[in-house]
């Protein structure tokens, strides 16, 4: 039985914005199936009345005052920028080409 097929891997890779080669898709499908097979053991566990744990610690209302702090220098803002123009981060056209 296959838990995840290549088409699903493609769809998920698309959501995750990861380009995969055909070979990678095959490999990924195979290894994910093995991992998901292993994950099936959770299905045997009865968790109907169990609340999920998001945080291992119990904290609430951690907040800061609405006080302005120093921003980064322009130099540090663009220190790692792959493409910068006139004080902006430059990106290729946003609307996809067909």
């Amino acid at each position, binding site marked *: 039985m296959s838990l995840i097929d290549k088409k699903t891997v493609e769809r998920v890779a*698309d959501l995750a914005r990861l380009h995969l080669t055909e070979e990678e898709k095959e490999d990924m499908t195979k290894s994910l199936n093995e991992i998901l097979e292993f994950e099936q053991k959770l299905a045997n566990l009865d968790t109907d009345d169990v609340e999920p*744990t998001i945080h291992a610690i119990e904290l609430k209302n951690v907040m800061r005052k609405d006080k302005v702090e120093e921003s*980064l220098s322009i130099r540090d803002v663009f220190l790692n920028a792959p*493409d910068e123009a006139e004080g902006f981060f430059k990106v290729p056209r*946003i609307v996809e080409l067909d």
Partner: protein
Amino acid sequence: MELINKSALELRDLLDKREVSSREIVEAYLERIEAVEPKVNSFVTLTKEQALKDADKADKMIKDKTATSLTGIPIAIKDNLCTYHVKTTCCSKIIKDFLPPYDATVITKIKEAGMPILGKTNMDEFAMGSSTETSIFGPSKNPWDLERVPGGSSGGSAAAVAAMEAPLALGSDTGGSIRQPAALTGIVGIKPTYGLVSRYGLIAFASSLDQIGPFAKNVSDAAALLTLLAGHDRRDSTSLPLEKVDYLQNLGQDIKGLRVGVPVEFFAEGIDPEVESNVKNSIKALEEFGAEIIEISLPHSEYALAAYYLVATAEASSNLARFDGVRYGHRSKEDRDSVTMFKHTRAEGFGPEVKRRIILGTYALSSGFYDAYYLKALKTRTLIKQDFDEAFKKVDVLITPTTPSPAFKFGEKNKDPLAMYLSDIFTTTANLAGIPAMSLPAGLTSEGLPVGVQIFAPALKEDIMLNTAYALEKAIGSIGFPALEV
């Protein structure tokens, strides 16, 4: 005087007595690094000049009597901790030239304490791995056997301390990434209670599991470094607002009457017999000190790894989404439009294991699968936490092997993701439950490979955990250091 053999606290003592300067210590370590790095490959970036400058500053602090408990002691830093204007790469192509414009909170503490930073250490790419084999800089070697892995993901930090390239190091532990390499390289490594050490500046793998912790040659050194790292940070909303504790203070207390739990599930299947015998010896040693050994059960342990890999990858899929080639890091030349650029940037920038985990995590969160995978894992997490709550009603600490086997060989597991994931089988529960856990050497196998013993304690009971470890360390004695002929 052989400085590199000494513990951090011994060196600190020599500094106080003015028998040695911080500069001399740093020089000794730089020399050692130069000698063994070609074999061990612990570091990915060295910061020699800055380390010497910081050593001079430390010497001045000592002279001016403004020094603190670790002033002048050099340290190695895992390469997922942000260091101001010093490359922080997570050993990934996608940020291989990233210069953080800020320091992680732990780095600020280390700098303020006057600890010279020797460099940044090797790790599995984005801390995803148990062997450092996924690092773009090539793996680090286990100083006890260069054909074997040092463990991971903080393998570089562990190897550096074991190879005496640094007296102390920082790592991060999401599912065992400090404890497993500590065990495999025969040193001490601590994963503190979630929220004890600020995560600000730690490049996230799985936010609800990640903790920064120390590597050291012995328990006292590790306790001293943890004392420095711990404390509330207003920049981390999950940082616990607590009074500072000096973890050195409690060491050496009598453990007579200490209730030590031995969870049966950790000695069941697939455990290497030499690992088992070494850990059993440790348990016996504690008993001889007057500790009460109690067999207990953590019934949901067998589900921990499955839950862990869903929680960790789901969070990672989101945490690693920001690497899109817009503001920092690698950008693909395939840039006809932004979507294409994103997809190719990430395809070129991430290694296969990182991609696999991103896809697994994305899948676990995606519409239609969320309940069966991610939510199920969070609920399982609750059961695991409850197991510990129950156990700690009966015992003060738990003792287990850190890993099911000693260091494995390169290539042994990296072709089989699931086999690699199984290296974390004994360590992930502590991250899921948020409790402290540590590994310390239990002995050597007949092949001369270190075996680690793991101690769990209830949340924020690091003092009891460390005192237990201290007693054990005394009983076992030093396993020595790898020969590593140079």
